[in-house]
Every structure is written in structure tokens, then in C-alpha cells.
């Protein structure tokens, strides 16, 4: 493998100085002569170099940008070294609220509570403080309640590039349309089509 090109070197330096994904625009601003295509080519070169030489880090596309991360196979080593803190696990309540917001956004607190059947004020505040959700507007409904949506940090935390990478409804065991219509009223008690988990 040959040496790195000047632009891949620049990118490597900046990736090593950042702990969040950087967009192609941000990376392009490093060199006024570099086009978006140049940046993409340099990213590919860096990635191939890391793969080819067996580096413990890799270039990952994440939350709409690019970031260098350690490979998953070195997780145990990093943990053993105690040189870095592992991300705390998200609680079930947090994940359920996040799931509801991610799929229904923009969505109000009442709808989240309706789906989870439990008061969600505390969870929403925590999610907002952690920067995983944000207020994206207000509903037109009574009292004009706040509407929530997920942030890029949410994608980062899940290792997703885009909201479209979330598991799709068809992949789920129970296929359910959002805001499903009432089942046929004439067909009393016949919920045969319902799949039990």
C-alpha cells in the first residue's frame, strides 16, 4: 500500500482531532481546492489504507458524516485498558420513548404516553438533556403542545447514517401501520389475524 495522499493526510489529522462525525462540507472546507468528489475519494483512500494495513481503526459513515472509530473487535482491549469510558446502556423506558419518537416524529408527549401507557415527562427531559431528542415545533392541537424529534446524536449513538436506516416496519414481527384504523366492527372478537409474540 502506498503512502497517503495529502488530502487523506489532512482528513486523518482532522478525524483524529474530532470525536464526532464530520460532514463532507466540513471536510471540504479544509482545502479550498478540493471538490466534494475529491473529499470522497480521499475518504475512500484512507478507509482502504486502514483496511489493507490492518489498522485497529476504521472510517465509518455515521449520522450523515464520517468518523474514525476503533474496530469492534478491539472493544475488549479498550475496556481492559480502562483508558476510555463505555457508553452507558439505555434503559428500556428510554429506548421505548426513543423508538416512539424516532418512528412518529414530530410527535407530542401525549401520543408517546398513549403508546407507552405511562407518564413520560421525566424520560423526555432526560432524553433532551442528553441531546438525543429536541423540540422541533408545536402541534396545532389544543394547547399547542411541543413536538419532539430525534437529533443527529441519536443516529450517532445507534451507529446509523440516516433515519431511513432504522428497522423498517415490514421487518418487524408484528406489522402495524402507524395510526391503524379500527378493525372491522362486524367481525366480533375475531382477531385471528393477530400474531402472538
Amino acid at each position, binding site marked *: 500500500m502506498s503512502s497517503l495522499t495529502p488530502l487523506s493526510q489532512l482528513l486523518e489529522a482532522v478525524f483524529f482531532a474530532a470525536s464526532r462525525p464530520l460532514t463532507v462540507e466540513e471536510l471540504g472546507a479544509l482545502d479550498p481546492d478540493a471538490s466534494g468528489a475529491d473529499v470522497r475519494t480521499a475518504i475512500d483512500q484512507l478507509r482502504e489504507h486502514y483496511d489493507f494495513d490492518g489498522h485497529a481503526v476504521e472510517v465509518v459513515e455515521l449520522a450523515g458524516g464520517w468518523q474514525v472509530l476503533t474496530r469492534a473487535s478491539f*472493544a475488549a482491549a479498550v475496556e481492559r485498558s480502562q483508558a476510555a469510558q463505555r457508553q452507558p446502556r439505555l434503559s428500556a423506558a428510554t429506548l421505548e420513548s426513543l423508538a416512539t419518537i424516532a418512528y412518529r416524529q414530530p410527535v407530542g408527549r401525549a401520543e408517546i404516553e398513549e403508546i407507552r401507557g405511562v407518564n413520560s415527562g421525566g424520560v423526555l427531559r432526560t432524553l433532551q438533556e442528553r441531546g438525543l431528542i429536541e423540540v422541533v415545533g408545536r402541534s396545532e392541537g389544543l*394547547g399547542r403542545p411541543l413536538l419532539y424529534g430525534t437529533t443527529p446524536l441519536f443516529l450517532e449513538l445507534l451507529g446509523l447514517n440516516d433515519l431511513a436506516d432504522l428497522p423498517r416496519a415490514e421487518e418487524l414481527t408484528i406489522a402495524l401501520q402507524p395510526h391503524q384504523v379500527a378493525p372491522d366492527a362486524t367481525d366480533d372478537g375475531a382477531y385471528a389475524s393477530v400474531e402472538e*409474540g
Partner: protein
Amino acid sequence: METLQVAVEVEPAVDRAFVVDLDGFTGPLDLLLHLVREEQIDIANIQVSRIADQFLRAIHSLGLNQAADYLEMAGRLIRLKAQTLLPRRFDDDTWEDPRAELVRRLLEYQQVKEIAVRLGRMAERRALRYARGFLPPPAAAPPPLPIVLDLADMLIAVERVISGIPDPVLHRVVARPLDVESATARIVLLLADRDEFDWREALGNHPTLVDVLSTLLAILELAKRGSIRVLQDIPFGNLVIAREFADPAVATA
């Protein structure tokens, strides 16, 4: 689908707090799913009344703070139970089995749980990869921060703020139409004349429902004050209003 198993153990209220196996437990729908499963009830034959009773029993053991989160679900279940118990006419086409809503909600929630489990796994996988730990200290900021601010941006912000202001909520307060004072006055007037009389005489001519209610309240108030006695011979019989003598000596005179 082992991922959706909910391990909930509702233990007797040893420790006034709601004791559940917290692994994966987050809310009333979890509890409901658990009850549905524990009963081994086919989801097509949910006995809402049994589930509702168990749910209520479970939340009885909660402290007030925890129970508050469950009240909405409890209310919903009680309403469902009432709906299933109510008789209905055969030709009522608009009737929808109230269990349908419960099934819908449970399914929707199961879906959310499944997604949550998947998101949790994704987060776990992501947590195996570490981001750069050492970051160079940020370069000293150039002294005068170039703030970009223009009027157009700010006016757009003003519009956003204005459109976000909720309309004032106006409550229409309806003057209470019950007129207990007049009804009281009528009764006192009648008592000045006679020792006892039929309560309907206090209603006045052509009484409306409101007059009846006002009079009843007036009677109750006067009875409470000890000004009158209310007599009734038989259940559902007529009410007779009698003057209450404050002094027993006067009464026997």
C-alpha cells in the same frame, strides 16, 4: 419471540413501593402484557373484566407516586370492563368490541418494544467502537467573534415566536342557574304558616327541573341547619316537611 418476554413479578406490598422485576419493565402496558400472558389467555378471548380486576389489585400495592402513572390505564380498563358488561341491542351496528382497542394498543406497544430491543442492540454494537479520546485543546478564539446577525433572520425568528404563542384559553363560566335562596325563602314562608306541609308545595307553580333541584338542596340545607325535619312514610313515598322545634319544651307545648 423471546425478545418480547417481559419478566414482571408483582410481589405483595412488602415494601410499600411497587416491587417488580425491573428487567425490561417500564409501564402499565408491560404489566398488562404480563397479565394477559400469565392468564394464558388467547389474545382473541381477552376477558377484560378479569384483567382489569388484576390490574387494579396490582396497582393497589403501589405508593401514591407510582400509582399515579398507572391511573390512566386503570381508568381505561375500567371503562372497557364496563363496556363489555353493558347489554347491547342486536341491531346495533355501530357497536365495536371494546377489546379491539385493547388489542390494538397491546399490539402497538409490542411493536414499540420490539423496536426498542433492536435499537438497544444497535446501541450496544455501536458502543463496541470507540471514538477518539484525546482531543487537542480548541484553538484560541480570534478576539472579536464575528457574529452574523441580520434583520431578516431576526424577523423570521419573531414570526416563529409569535406563531408559537398559544392562544389564550378562554373559559366560559356559566352563572349557576340553581336558585337555592329563593327556594329556602319559599319554605321558610310556608313554615311560618303551618307546622308541616307536602314538599311539593314549596316547588311553586309549573316547577322546572332546576326548581326541583333548588328546592331539594334548600330542604337538605334547612335540615342540616336543624330548622326542619323531613319525614317519609315509606320508601319512595312522599316527603313531608315539618318544623323542627329547637326547644323541646316548645315542641311538647
